[in-house]
């Protein structure tokens, strides 16, 4: 395989380690650890950047400046916040079920991080290229609902519990239209493998082939990652952050981190499925990938700071009565389209 910039870099690193250690197996092992570390570094760094972005974008939209005091252009604001969160008192509600309550934030982080294993960041730069990649992503992504349920349940707080119930209802109703929207993409590309899906878009991005699927997918992914207009699980003005109500300090920060990791993976997924992944002229693949991902994140943030929140019944009605039939129709249309294409 030819490989993009990232692959060349990792190859160089591998040869270097191999030269030093002299043992193929040990250097393979070190490389795996390095790659896992790289994913975690990407997630944490991306969270910091996204929080900064979110605040700045929110500020600019609201005629304010956003954080601009800590560090140059306020870049270190998020770091300062992290330090503040670490220094906070760890409050455990008396009535909470301590063990469940304590492990939830950590558990939540697992699915959030796991998805990154199958994302193709660049030509050839994918941690494991599963042949059921997209299926794996959907399966793992929906796991996070369990943690919301656990957290809300273990807090012994009515608001948290209500948030947890909302989370379950919301995830169930967002998964299905999303799956059908993705199915259309899979039909066109003919593979579940993430790299194949990207490769199939080398000439034409799927947003042009499947515009309806793109819209359905964007709406349902917003539901999936609990962002406005579907942030019912948190719903600050109704149920005061829902499952997170009782969490503070570092535990809350983990929730926060997972949330932004999810936002990033949602953006990556959108780019991979519909916007041609790392494909693009002139610039190296990884740069194209980053540019597209951050544009999608900007879109999500822009939406968040413009719209009000929907109500729970309206959200369910939207996904079951509108998105699902549309997605089914889209699949049928895609099938017919493929048939006609092959026939010609």
């Amino acid at each position, binding site marked *: 395989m030819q490989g993009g910039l990232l692959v060349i870099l990792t190859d160089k690193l591998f040869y270097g380690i191999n030269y030093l250690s002299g043992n193929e197996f040990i250097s393979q092992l070190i490389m795996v650890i390095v790659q896992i570390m790289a994913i975690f570094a990407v997630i944490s760094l991306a969270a910091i950047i996204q929080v900064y972005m979110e605040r700045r974008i*929110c500020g600019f*939209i*609201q*005629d*304010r400046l956003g954080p601009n005091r800590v560090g140059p252009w306020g870049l270190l604001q998020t770091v300062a916040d992290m330090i503040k969160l670490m220094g906070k008192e760890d409050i455990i509600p008396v009535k909470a079920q301590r063990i469940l309550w304590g492990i939830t934030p950590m558990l939540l982080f697992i699915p959030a991080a796991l998805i990154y294993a199958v994302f193709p960041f660049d030509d050839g730069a994918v941690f494991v290229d599963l042949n059921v990649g997209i299926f794996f992503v959907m399966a793992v992504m929906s796991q996070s609902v369990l943690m919301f349920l656990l957290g809300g349940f273990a807090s012994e707080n*009515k*608001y948290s519990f*209500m948030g947890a*119930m909302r989370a379950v209802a919301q995830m169930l109703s967002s998964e299905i239209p999303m799956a059908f929207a993705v199915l259309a993409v899979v039909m066109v590309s003919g593979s579940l493998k993430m790299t194949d899906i990207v490769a199939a878009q080398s000439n034409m991005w799927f947003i042009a082939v499947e515009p309806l699927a793109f819209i359905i997918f964007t709406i349902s992914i917003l539901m999936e990652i609990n962002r*406005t*207009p579907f*942030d*019912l699980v948190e*719903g*600050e*003005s*109704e*149920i*005061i952050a829902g499952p997170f109500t009782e969490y503070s300090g570092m535990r809350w920060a983990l929730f926060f981190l997972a949330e932004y990791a999810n936002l990033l993976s949602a953006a990556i997924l959108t780019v991979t499925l519909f916007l041609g992944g790392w494909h693009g002229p002139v610039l190296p693949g990884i740069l194209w990938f980053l540019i597209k991902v951050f544009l999608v994140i900007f879109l999500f943030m822009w939406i968040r*700071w*413009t*719209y*009000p*929140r*929907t*109500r*729970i*019944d*309206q959200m369910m009605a939207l996904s079951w009565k509108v998105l699902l039939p549309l997605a089914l129709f889209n699949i049928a249309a895609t099938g017919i389209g493929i048939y006609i294409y092959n026939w010609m």
Partner: protein
Amino acid sequence: MIQTESYKLSMGPVHPSTHGVLQVWLTLDGERILRADPCMGYLHRGIEKLLEKRTYFQCLPYTDRLDYVSAMNNNLGYCSAVEKLAQIEVPKRAQYIRVIMAELNRIASHMIFIGSLAVDLGATTGMIYPFRDRERILDIFNELCGARMTYSYIRIGGVKSDLAVKVISMIDDFLAKLTDMIDEYNDLLTGNEIFQYRLKNTSILTAKQAMELGITGPMLRASGVSYDLRKDNTYCSYEDFDFSIPLGEKGDNWDRYIVRLKEMSESAKIIKQALAGLPTGEFMAKVPKVLKPPKGEVYDVTEGPRGEVGYHIVSDGSAKPYRVHIRRPSFINLQALDIMCRGYLVGDVVAAMSTIDPIMGEVDC
């Protein structure tokens, strides 16, 4: 067999969307509301009692602190009650200035309403824009009387100071921009489908229910009852101005929002007319240094941004009122919360609470 049970949820007094320190006890069946009991008193300061120990002049700053987002209207209500009691004739110029300020304050108050409704529905940006625009009105008031919230500008017998040229030009500036501001709210909020879905056909309050509960102000008018003291019981030269009263049809959250939005333009109309026809003359009547109204009592009502602001003052002939009772519109309007919430969802409670637009300082007094 599956059994379901209702449960109680305490919303507030520390809750982001209870507009201060209001507690609402919700009885819920899942997310559906069976009952909503507002429980108030967390901001009680005993203002009515405090007024008994102060002279008529000294009472004024306390009325600022009732409904702190529309202090001018409270000042106006108090002053016209005392003037009625002591039979003081207010000069025409002062009356016009009072109208201008009361209407400006009404606009500012409705901006707060729009902002807090937006933020309660989760649209943070929808909050920032009206609050930013309200700042322009506060700038005018700051220039006029040196305070942004607690004006004490309308005094017994007139107003504190005459309208300076600078203030008039600031008001003109503001009015010129107001249409753009309202257009922006329309683009961002009114036209937004999510916003419409959230508000339309929720928390319906029929005209009959509203009248039975003694609801006044924009809430009553949203239910379709044309009742506005500025027209029906004119005071302070309101009869000189030409304006219309926006009415709703159904009495749902949407109507309450639209009525207030339209009232802002109507207020702007009144201000324009008042500025154009501003009479010359005194801005303060001759009021004795020590005011001792004759024995007796008086009840006077004015139309505040939230409804009828009424002052019942009992005088025993001394320099201090014997008893003051204040009819606070927020307090009475809040009683409709239960009717408005029953059968709707938790998300609607927040919207209903915003469209009632209670100010806790006024509810608890």
